């Protein structure tokens, strides 16, 4: 069965969706990601959807689910690289995905995850030493 690969990079998990999603593929990604977060105690998840042409209500919901589930497991999720046409369509569809953090590209998404991690673990001493 087709699967979307998940890369582990230190504290983060990296997913680049290179094919158009269909329901079973998206569901598989959801469970794989949750299992990986648990296994590696990951602190952040970055999902790059720049190659995805269509996000409908089901796939939008999966992305929202992933964000919520990883939150429960103490990991932040950032969705990056959404195409303009996809963003406009999601809004028209009525799915503003308010619970999901977004960033323009992988670079900005990684910076966002690092920021979040840094902020949650920040103590006065730490910030002085760094």
């Amino acid at each position, binding site marked *: 069965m087709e699967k979307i690969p998940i890369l582990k990079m230190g504290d983060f998990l990296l997913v680049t969706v290179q094919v158009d999603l269909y329901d079973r593929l998206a569901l598989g990604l959801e469970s794989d990601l949750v299992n990986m977060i648990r296994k590696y105690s990951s602190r952040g998840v970055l999902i790059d959807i720049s190659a995805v*042409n269509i996000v409908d209500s089901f796939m939008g919901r999966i992305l929202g689910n992933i964000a919520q589930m990883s939150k429960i497991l103490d990991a932040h999720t950032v969705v990056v690289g959404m195409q303009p046409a996809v963003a406009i369509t999601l809004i*028209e569809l009525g799915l503003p995905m308010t619970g999901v953090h977004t960033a323009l590209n992988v670079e900005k998404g990684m910076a966002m995850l690092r920021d979040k991690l840094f902020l949650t673990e920040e103590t006065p001493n730490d910030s002085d030493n760094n």
Partner: protein
Amino acid sequence: MITINSETINIKTEQDAVFLRNRVSEYANKIKMGLVNQTKLLTAASELVRNMLRYAGGGKVLCEVISQSVLQTGIRLTFIDNGPGIPNIADAMKDGFSTGKSLGIGLPGAKRLVNEFQIKSQEGEGTSVTILKWKNG
């Protein structure tokens, strides 16, 4: 209104849905539909195909390229299934209403994405949904 091209695609599995998407996108490119309108049409189609698979176990989709005047061409998709039908269409068209475990924005959302939307359903007989998206509009 003239139909320029028409084709019927059978839908039985999720893979057929992917095939349908590619086919519709080919037609949309052929009539030079803009990217945003194309994405809206494909997303609406994706919603309707999912409903078809989930509630009726499949069906067929009629794809048509239609033309109204020199300037206005578009794509019309008709989703026909022989499923259980929708008992109350008014309810089904409401945001947030779902008999399954979904968000309940499939049908009303699809309607917002296209220029024309028609739904007919007979309980026990099946459902037919027609959507139309103009190239510019």
